[in-house]
Each structure stands twice: as C-alpha cells, then as structure tokens.
C-alpha cells in the first residue's frame, strides 16, 4: 500500500502546514514520538503537583475566613482569596495557549494527537474549586511523559493522580474493615475501580465480573490526596487482608499492591484488545477491520504494552492508511489543523490576548460541542461521527471557518494556494470549484476548511 503523506499527516497528525514538511513514511511519524519532546520544553505547562502549595494556602485562607468574626478581616481575606483564585484560574488559558502553540509548532502533530487521545482515554478533571482550572497539569505529568513509554506506567500515573482520585471519588473510599469504616462508619466507593477496569483497561466487553470490581475497590482503598501532603496510601482507609482480582492475589494493603494490580490489569489480553480497538477507531474508522485491531493487539501483547511498538503496528498496517478519509475530526482537531493549514505560528498564538483566545477559540469550540477540558463523562468525548456533525455543531464549524483566517492573520493567502496547503495538490473538483469561485478570499478559505475533505481525516 502506498504511503499518502497528506492523508497520513491528517489522519495521524494535525494535518499539513505550509511551515512544515510532510512525512515521507510511517518512520517519520514515529520519529516524532521517539525524539526528545521539544514542544514540552518550548511551551511549558505547569504540572498539577507544582500547585499543591498554592492550593493548600488557598484552603487555609478559606478556613480563616470562615472562622473570622471580624468583618474587616473577612473582607481582606475575601480579596486575597479572590486574587489567588484568579491567578490559578488563569492557568487554564495559559495551558490552552501552550497546547495550541505545541500543535502549530510540531512537525506532524502526531505526539499532540496522541496527547488528545490518551488524555481522553484517561478523562479526569477536578470536580470543585480552582483545581478545575488545572486539568492540563494532570495530563502534563500523568500522560505526556508516558506517551512514548509503557502503557502500564501511564495507567499507574493516571489512576493514582490527585485529579483522577477526585474525579472518580476515590478520596473518600474506605475499606469495609478499615479504621475509617469501623470508627466513623465510612465505606467503599467502587467508582474508580469500576472505571479502571471498564474504561481504562479490559473494556466493558472484557472478562470480568462485579466481584472483581469489588475486590479491586478493596485494593484501591487507601489512596487519598490531600493538599497538605499530596497523594498517599493512608493506613486508616486501607482494607486489611488479601484480595483476589481476576484470579491474582494481593496480600498486603499498600501502594505496592495497587501498582501490582494495575500492572496485572495492563498485562491482561483483554486490555491489549481494548486499547488496540480504541486506537483503530480513533485514528482510522468508527468500524475498523478486525485484522487491523488484531495486528495492533498482538503488538501490544508481544511488546508488553510498549507504546511506540503499538503505534508502529497501527501505522504499518495496510488497513490503516489505504482507505479514503473517513472519521470526522473532533472540534479541537479541526481548530488545530485549521491553524496549521493557515500557517499559524507560536508567534501568532502568543499575540492573541486572553480575551481573543476565549472569543476566537474557546467559545467556538463550545458551540461546536467540545467545551475544552469538559467532556461529558469518564468515557471521554464520543468517537461517533454523527455526534459531531449536528446542525448547530456544523453551523459553528462553518461560521468559525469563515472567520478564522481573518482573526489569525491579516494577510490572507489566495484560496487556490490555500487549497494546496490544506488538502494537497489532488483536492476534489467540488472543493476546487468552491475555492476558485468564492467571492472573497476569506470565503474561499472558509469553504476549504468547511469541506468534507478537510473535516474528515
């Protein structure tokens, strides 16, 4: 099967850009993953852990404010709290800016696509307070370092991360025979245990039972994050005694047991199949062929979940690159690939004010149906194409397509040149006709961006 550089760049990366070369083969795409992560260095995003002290101070200030009887002191505290909250809330847009910069600066955007994929696979965000603005900090430390490593390491980092513990209610889960249960009537919460098995590892079709969820929840009991001392395995929450999950025994309640159980889940053959299928659905088609899934799954098993090997299997298989463009881009992929096609640079991104980022990018993304960092549930954003192409979703894509060129750069390219930048030299007759016959440059560019050929990958 011949390698199609334009299609491969759109399907596995964030689409072509006049500022970057096209990939000449699967090896080029893989190199972007195995090479050092230049984008993370150039456009840093602060990790969630680096904010622990700030969050602690803020929670202390709240406490002081509640306990104070003096109206003047209360007012002063309120102002301090407001300022500190604002600083933390600003992190979300700063991280979004960095994410966009990485998207336009990277050569193919394969790593950034994988970031979107894995942060969706391990969907989590804090439920309350300013921590909600720090989701990117979770992804940055739990997901990104492991994208070119082993699945098991990503799994361990994501599942035990403070943001995940909050999102899936692990912080308050106590073993039924723990001190917390015996003395304070607390109990087990199965939420995280269930989602790890159902969503993150074996998949809902995997060979597990309710008893495994329950037992795994007993293994996890003890994980708790506090601003004071971070994520720790707490003695008073842990469940004494041995547990058996999917036939494996875990004898000593501890973080080691949690890690061992997660490693065993990562090694399970159903996990290989589940991840293989998700990758194929996301990158290739809503209905991928079994041979492709089997090929990726085998690479996962044989390599012990070594992700670059898994990606290589995806890229090498003829079923992955030989088809016509199929899947609809998610709104964020559409936005990022449009910016790349328009030749946007990190400089353009840096020039946008916070207000412009909201108006030009965040609000349109929300109207397109993908509010940044706010997926509907722990299962992340839907993959189905018809979820995205709704009347208001498509209208929002078209309206944004008509405006974006104008917003991002003053000097608009000729739509006929832009057509080649965005879709290559072999764009279909209908799109070419539209680009050529548009009344203005910005409408011509908008039509190219709105075309099915650009909306699909």
């Amino acid at each position, binding site marked *: 099967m011949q390698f199609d550089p334009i299609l491969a760049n759109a399907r596995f990366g964030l689409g072509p850009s006049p500022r970057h070369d096209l990939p000449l083969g699967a090896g080029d795409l893989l190199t972007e993953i195995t090479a050092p992560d230049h984008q993370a260095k150039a456009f840093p995003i602060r990790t969630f852990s680096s904010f622990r002290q700030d969050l602690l101070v803020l929670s202390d200030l709240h406490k002081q404010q509640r306990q104070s009887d003096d109206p003047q002191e209360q007012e002063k505290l309120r102002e301090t709290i407001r300022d500190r909250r604002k600083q933390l809330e600003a992190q979300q847009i700063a991280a979004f800016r960095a994410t966009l910069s990485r998207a336009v600066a990277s050569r193919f955007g394969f790593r950034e696509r994988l970031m979107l994929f894995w942060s969706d696979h391990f969907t989590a965000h804090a*439920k309350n307070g300013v921590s909600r603005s720090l989701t990117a900090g979770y992804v940055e430390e739990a997901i990104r370092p492991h994208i070119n490593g082993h699945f098991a390491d990503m799994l361990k980092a994501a599942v035990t991360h403070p943001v995940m513990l909050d999102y899936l209610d692990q912080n*308050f889960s106590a073993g039924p025979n723990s001190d917390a249960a015996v003395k304070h009537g607390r109990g087990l919460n199965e939420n995280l245990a269930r989602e790890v098995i159902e969503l993150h590892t074996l998949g809902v079709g995997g060979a597990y039972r309710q008893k495994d969820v329950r037992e795994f929840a007993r293994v996890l009991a003890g994980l708790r994050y506090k601003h004071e001392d971070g994520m720790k395995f707490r003695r008073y929450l842990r469940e004494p005694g041995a547990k058996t999950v999917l036939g494996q025994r875990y004898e000593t309640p501890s973080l080691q047991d949690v890690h061992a159980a997660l490693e065993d889940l990562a090694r399970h053959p159903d996990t290989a199949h589940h991840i293989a299928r998700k990758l194929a659905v996301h990158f290739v088609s809503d209905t991928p062929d079994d041979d492709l899934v089997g090929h990726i799954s085998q690479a996962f098993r044989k390599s012990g979940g070594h992700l670059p090997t898994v990606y290589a299997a995806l890229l090498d298989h003829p079923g992955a690159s030989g088809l016509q463009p199929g899947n609809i881009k998610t709104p964020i992929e559409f936005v990022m690939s449009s910016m790349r096609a328009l030749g946007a640079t990190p400089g353009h991104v840096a020039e946008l004010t916070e207000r412009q980022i909201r108006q030009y990018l965040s609000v349109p993304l929300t109207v397109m149906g993908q509010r940044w960092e706010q997926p509907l549930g722990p299962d992340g954003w839907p993959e189905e194409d018809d979820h995205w192409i709704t009347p*208001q979703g498509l209208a929002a894509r078209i309206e944004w397509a008509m*405006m974006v060129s*104008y917003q991002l750069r003053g000097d608009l390219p000729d739509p006929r040149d832009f057509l080649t930048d965005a879709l290559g030299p072999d764009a279909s007759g209908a799109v070419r006709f*539209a680009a050529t016959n548009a009344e203005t440059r910005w*409408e011509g560019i908008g039509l190219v961006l*709105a075309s*099915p050929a650009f909306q699909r990958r």
Partner: protein
Amino acid sequence: MPPINRRRFLTQSAALGCSAAASPLLTPIALAAAPGEARLVVIVLRGGMDGLDVVRPYGDPDFAALRPKLAADRAKSHDLDGFFAAHPALDRLMPLWSQGQLAFVQAVSTPYRDKRSHFDGQDILEAGTPGLPGTRQDGWLNRLLQSMPDTEAKTAFAIGRDTMRVLSGSAPVANWSPDASLTLGPQTARLLELMYHDDPVFRDTIAEAMDLSGALRSQAASFEPENMMQQMQATQRDMRQNGQEASVASFAAEQLRGATRIAAFSVNGWDTHAKQAQGISRALERISDVILTLRDELGPIWQNTTVMAMTEFGRTVRENGTQGTDHGTGGAMILAGGAIRGGQVFGRWPGLSEGDLYERRDLLPTADVRSYAAWTLRELFGADVANLETSVFPGLSMGDNPRLIL
C-alpha cells in the same frame, strides 16, 4: 437576500418525486396529532438552588433563627399562603401566582445523597436513575420519547450550549443554540451545498442547519468577516447582558409554537456559597425572564404549557459564615404555565427543628422529585405508569397523583 433554504427546496422536490402522504415533511396533521398539544419545558437549574430562600417557610418557628440574615427582609418577600413567602426578587412572577400559573414544590430531591457533588447530582437528576448512571448517558426525557409513538426530531428540542443529558439518548431530538448561527452569502451557500452534495452526512445536516438558522435570522446580514465577528461578539454581549437564558427562552418559544412539544435547557448560577442575597437575586431575575419570555412569546399556547424547573439539590438550612449556604439535600421545584394547577405550594413540609433535618444540616426530602416529573409526563402526554416507573425513572414509585396539572 436571505440565505438559501435548502429544506424548502428538498420539500418541494419531494413533492414532485413521491406521493404527498409518504413525505413526513408534508403531513402536519399526523405530526400534530401524535404527541398532542401539550407543551413541556424542562429547565435544569444548575448549581443547587436554595429552595429555602426561594420559597421561605416563615410559618416554621425555627426558620428565622436559621436564616438570621438571609430571611431578614420578610417585609419585602411575597406572602404565598400564610406559611410560605416567595423571595423578593420573584416580584415579576407574582401576577402569575394570583392567576394560578405559578407553583412550587417544597422538600423534594433526587435519590442522590451525601456526597453533595454538583457533578454527580446533575448526572442523577438528568439520568432519572436511582443512583449514579455511570457511563449510561441517556436522560429520562429521551427515554420518554423512545416510548412515544410518532415523534419526529423536532418533537423535542435541546437548546443552548450546555449538553442537556436529560434529552440525550437514542430517540432523535433537535439541537440548536441561539448563539450558533449560520450567516452565509447566497454564493457561499450555493458553493457549500455543491461541495456537500456527495457526502450525505454533510448534505443532510447543512439542510437542517440552514432551515433552523434561516428561521432564526431572517434579517439581511452583511457577509464580511469583520461584520460577522462583530455580530458574533454582539450576540455574545447581548446574551451576557440580556441573559443568555432569555435568548434561549425566546428560541424555545419559537419552536414550541411549531412542531416542538418538549424543550429543555439550563439556567445556571445557583451555587451561592457566599453573599447569597446578591447571587440568588440575579439567578431569580434570570428565571423570571425565562418564564415571562415564554409566556409573552407563546401567546395562546401558554395555556397548554408546563414549565418545570428542577435542581440537583437544595442547600444547608443554616446560613454559613460567608452569608451564603452550602450544598444540601432537600430542595424546591418551580412550576409555571397555563396548564398547571398553580397558586399553591406542593409537598409535605418536614419541619426545621434539629431532629427533623437530614443529617442535622439539610432539609429532609419528603418526596422524590422524579415522582412530580413522572406525574407531569403522565398528565401531559398520557405516559404509561409502568413505563414511567421502570424505564423512564427506573425504580421509582410514583405514589399518589399530586394533581399538578389542570
């Protein structure tokens, strides 16, 4: 020149190509007959509305002491029945109360208990399930539609930017947000249709989008990016100033005057942990705008309309240290419309003495909010009780008919 209306074009060509009876677009009688004439507007009040501040139980001997600051303006509040009084900010709705077109339900909640998370609370409220829905995403209004015969996509409309899980699921529903728009020059519209012609997904969706947006914006717009940008910014600004909710309500009214029977959207901003007096007044102004916009713009259809506003939980009975309230349990529901038996506060009052409270901090829910919703669906659409208790609201026991609907 208005944008090209592709739906109209398709309708006309369908009429040429096949018999009129076979085209769903040309059988308005069948459409109107199927779901009846009743209209239901479900509003999700996100953030946890403080039912004790909205419908104040001044008749309860413990109330004043629990709310020394928040309930101090008794003179300005609106007496409802000698026991309850409405928050002062609801003044514009009081004429509806006298006309029997406004009602409240007190001391209700979803089956959700104890964790008091907005996220989970709203999930349960919209899923209509007894516990957390997990990854099951469909909502109770969608499950109602699944059981209703002869519905079409526009029978139910989810409006606005918030995902309305209450309406999402396998039954088709229409979706639009009044801040979405599609303003295209005629030439661009034509080129777009040409470009989408061979891709059925894009072809059909753009037809619907042009239909909806054409209905929304008939005025001739100027098709320049600068103008579009200014217009989008103006739309955002208007929506901020006039309240996004009023625009949403206006759009809902437009649809409900047509084929739509059920509309769902959100009114947010009820999470009043601090300085509640200001926060809740603003939110009550917004819900008042919504209800009055619906009444004004629905015209005679208002008589067939039920507005049902529900929240994920109530708030603590005691004021906290920051002149607000924290997440609680039992809460209130707001009902409005010409179809309701208004002018009364429904629900069984549990009392506010220490022993009456839920976990010594929250209003004790004396009924499941789902039973009021279920009875409303029963009365408005003739939904089957067994279906309501097993499928629409799994595990619900509806109990006696509270007779909310005329």
